[in-house]
């Protein structure tokens, strides 16, 4: 009896550990946006039941017209999004507006992986209404029927750059470029410079799979004279860079090592390097040209079968409106996807901004996402070497 009890206890511990091992985690790029990786449910204050106010609309004409007379009847919209500055901008700008229309918002903070897993697991009966994903996962989700295809049911959709109308509603453009220590390079490096003998052993990359590390793998394919659809070429070329000086999970650590010169070069998403550069670290950011800066895009998606579709559309309209997009561009250099946004100064310089810059980005095929399982397995074996 005692033995059985102990055995049962042991099994419970194992099972609970297993469940715990599925706990949310943020990826490298998300860690930058999430100041402290956390998953918390934060409900906003009850909006009260007073009649919706529409007279004091301080948004653009299109958004004001769309929201006019809307009353969400005290329902709660569940939005899965990254924490940190991103969360704060939504709390400051978008949530108060939803509350004005008698709605509540619950933010589920976490990483893309958690949200994707949740959306697929809850297919047909979602508890999350709006989810922010990266563009490749969003497009696959639409194809798999777990996410709504974007449409001008959200009026701002028509103002998005065409590149932001694919998959979900593009929320921000970014480019996977190169962060480097200028001691090693007199001129801004390009992808080929990862293989420069003078930086051998001083190359860093992010954990795999993930946008940053997949981008470097794709770049390796191009440097081998092929492209991102040729695993043999990609892995053979990338293997030349191993062992990596570090595989980063946090940008803090990466940039500290880069500042000291222990890391010379690393693939980093455009928006994230500026904060560290502004701190006075010995770091620069380059927009590679051959074959190009790789397009990244955070995407707003509406979950198929949501019971709060009207609220989700309102959320999307507010999020894609020039006002919100401008705040993202000016505060964290997220490139606006709404073509009506006008940027000046630092924001214009540092963001992926304007038709020309958007067009210049290299958009990878879906090969990486379609073959994530086999590529990850190969990466574990051949690149990590264990």
């Amino acid at each position, binding site marked *: 009896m005692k033995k059985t009890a102990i*055995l049962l206890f042991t099994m419970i*511990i194992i*099972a609970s550990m297993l469940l715990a091992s599925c706990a949310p985690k943020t990826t490298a790029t998300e860690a930058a946006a999430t100041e402290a990786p956390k998953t918390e449910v934060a409900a906003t204050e009850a909006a009260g039941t007073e009649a919706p106010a529409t007279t004091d609309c301080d948004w653009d004409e299109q958004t004001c017209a769309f929201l006019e007379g809307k009353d969400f009847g005290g329902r709660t919209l569940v939005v899965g999004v990254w924490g940190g500055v991103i969360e704060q901008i939504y709390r400051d700008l978008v949530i108060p507006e939803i509350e004005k229309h008698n709605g509540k918002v619950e933010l589920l903070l976490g990483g893309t992986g958690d949200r994707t897993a949740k959306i697929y697991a809850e297919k047909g009966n979602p508890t999350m209404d709006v989810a922010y994903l990266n563009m490749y996962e969003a497009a696959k989700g639409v194809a798999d029927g777990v996410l709504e295809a974007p449409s001008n049911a959200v009026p701002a959709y028509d103002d998005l750059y065409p590149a932001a109308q694919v998959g979900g509603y593009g929320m921000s453009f970014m480019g996977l470029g190169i962060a480097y220590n200028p001691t090693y390079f007199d001129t801004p490096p390009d992808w080929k410079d990862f293989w420069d003998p003078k930086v051998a052993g001083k190359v860093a990359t992010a954990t795999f799979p993930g946008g940053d590390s997949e981008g470097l793998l794709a770049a390796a394919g191009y440097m081998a004279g092929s492209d991102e659809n040729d695993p043999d070429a990609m892995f053979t070329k990338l293997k030349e860079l191993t062992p990596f000086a570090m595989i980063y999970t*946090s940008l803090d650590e990466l940039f500290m*090592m880069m500042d000291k010169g222990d890391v010379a070069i690393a693939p980093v998403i455009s928006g994230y390097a500026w904060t560290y550069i502004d701190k006075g670290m010995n770091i620069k950011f380059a927009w590679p040209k051959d074959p190009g800066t790789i397009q990244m895009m955070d995407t707003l998606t509406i979950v198929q079968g949501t019971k709060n579709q009207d609220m989700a559309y309102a959320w999307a309209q507010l999020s894609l409106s020039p006002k919100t997009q401008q705040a993202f561009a000016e505060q964290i250099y997220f490139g606006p996807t709404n073509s009506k946004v006008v940027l000046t100064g630092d924001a214009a310089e540092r963001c992926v901004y304007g038709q020309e810059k958007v067009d210049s980005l290299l958009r990878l095929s879906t090969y990486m996402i379609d073959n994530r*399982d086999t590529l990850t397995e190969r990466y574990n074996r051949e690149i990590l070497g*264990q």
Partner: protein
Amino acid sequence: MQSRKKGSLILLLLPASLIIGVIFLLPFIFLLVQSFWTYESSFVSKPVFTLANYAKIFQDTYYLQVYLRTIKLSLISTGITLLLSYPLARFISRLKTGLKGFMLTLIALPMIGGAMIQTMGWMAMMMRYGMLNGILMGLGLAKEPVAFLGSELGIVIGLVQSFIPLMVLPLVTSLGAIDVTLEDAAKSLGANSLRTFFEVVLPLSLPGAAAGTILTLMMNLTMFVTPSILGQNKIMVFGTIAYQQAISVGNWPFASAFAIFFIMAVFIFAMLAMKVTSAIQKSTKQPKAAAKGAQA
């Protein structure tokens, strides 16, 4: 009378069993079922029976190496935890009640913060230019900064620190239950401190040590936060592969099979450990019985 007692016992246990069943057993069964499903693409799998997920584990030595690495790191960490916890537990068990409670609270305090916070703390200390390397280089013990992060050494340090409370608590209970006069008796019969420890204290505290060891070992085997943060995902272990497959890759059937296989292995391991524990308990009871016999 006996059967009525039994009946009410079952009734009393029912609510708790139901909760355990729903919370632990159902997900486990679902995991088992899903491990035989067919993977189609990221996050999409079909309920079509296949053994491919299990076959993949054995298709070469990669995943077996991951299991072995997990077991190796767990055993090393548990061993070190046990060695460090013993003197600490013995010291605490001898304190006065109030002070003892205070010390135990201090020991358990880091656990309140959770594994994530502790590990983040270690990350800051283990960085190339962090406190640990600063001390080592300042004392002249290292010329170059030691690469703690992304190494097995870093993982072991993190694991040992995390689970010391799990080892210390049962040890303190076990050591505290030992009659002090037994040690005095041993000493009065001419045994020195070392002999007293090895022949009296150690055997009597083994049940606590066994409980602590099993708890710590189980926690170590299922480590996830430590290897992903301190190991920087360079050192792949059971937890990190399971997470990678389930959340990053979205291959739930394989992630399930990978987990089920390990659970089975750990289960067998736990049964063996249990056998050893009960053997130890028996052997510690025998001297007592012998002593009683001698007294009579």
